[in-house]
């Protein structure tokens, strides 16, 4: 029930607002729910608010399951 889009913080302005880049398009996003975010961080954005830091390293870890399948099937991972 919720579109959450990943974006990259390119600037932080005053009043807990940030400029977030989505594939070359930018919008102002509030950091009120995630004030610890920094420039360069990826975050999940919903209705103009950063909801959580998006961890690219974690994204790689999710692939471990798939690596196991690939190993099992003899394909290169």
């Amino acid at each position, binding site marked *: *029930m919720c579109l959450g889009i*990943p974006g990259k913080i390119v600037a932080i302005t005053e009043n807990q607002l940030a400029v977030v880049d989505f594939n070359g398009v930018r919008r102002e996003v509030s950091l*009120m729910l995630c004030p610890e975010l920094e420039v360069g961080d990826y975050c999940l954005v*919903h209705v103009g608010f950063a909801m959580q830091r998006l961890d690219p390293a974690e994204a790689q870890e999710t692939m471990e399951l798939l690596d196991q399948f690939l190993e099992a099937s003899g394909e290169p991972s």
Partner: protein
Amino acid sequence: MNPHKNQDEGRLAPLLLENIAALADSPMRLMEVCGTHTVAIFRSGIRSMLPPGVELISGPGCPVCVTPAGEIDRAIALARREGMILATFGDLMRVPGSSSSLQEERAKGNAIRVILSPLDAVKIAEDNPDKTVCFFGVGFETTSPAIAAAVMEAQRKGCSNFYLLSSQRLIPPAMRALLSAGKVNIDGFILPGHVSVVIGKAPYCFLAEEFGLPGVITGFEPLDILEGIYLLLRQRKEGRTEIEIQYSRVVQEEGNPRARGIMEEVFAPVDARWRGLGTIPQSGLALRDGFSQMDAAQAFDLPLQDIAEPPGCLCGEVLQGLIRPPECSLFGTRCTPEAPVGPCMVSTEGSCAAFYKYGRGDAAK
């Protein structure tokens, strides 16, 4: 870089599907609670690729579908008031009330603005001090912290012309009500990834502990969904009944405590009506005393009417996962996206709309 997108989707998906098929020797019925999952499952083509043993059933997690017609009518009544601007998410524009919709009201010249963020509504209030601005706040736990933050912002800025018409609902109470009714036949849950960003894992534990059902908190990319389905099948194989997090790149076990704190500071749980499901205790949110001066329902004396569903409309059954859209006799005949009878056909992520738009190419499904 899209950190969600795996470049190798085309190669990895068949692998996941193979492993799913290997575990689907006996039928497993999985409910995807969240409307965004319903749409993602259709649009990715997953529905057309699952083995026959895995059945996906859509649940009540479509905020548009479960907003009662009476609440749409209240929003319309507000929009019709002299000097009022009603701000709403686009999702609500086409939902039928008892006699009209916000889209139709806008066409008549009433001031209705589609916004992307609750903060946009606050800005409209700031920019139009001579008008009254009401934000029609619909959504689940994903959206409520943002609505709460906007309410706090409006108070901080002294926007005395800003009001909230709250139509927010909570997912775990609805799931409990569904299961307690005892009518639905489900073997596991694909749990809403973005609601869980806020609430974390704990609120779902009752599914496993009280009802013996597994759940996997799942993301929205095709590989996420396939992995979520796989993990549910694997739990069954291994005799486990747990709540797992597949969407670990954004969902923390504890969710987002700050977001929850803001939500709890502004809103209190109340009983709420869900279209098609009836009243579910403590399943809605209302403004607490400190913010009640912004409550549009109180300020503008808007009684909530109980509107009966149109005759023949089976949205309630669809939302509870008791029937699939094609089993409703109105589906595709009297009820289509161009002329919807009930909300499940109006909402872009309503089960019926998704089935109609994406699913009719699958003869077998």
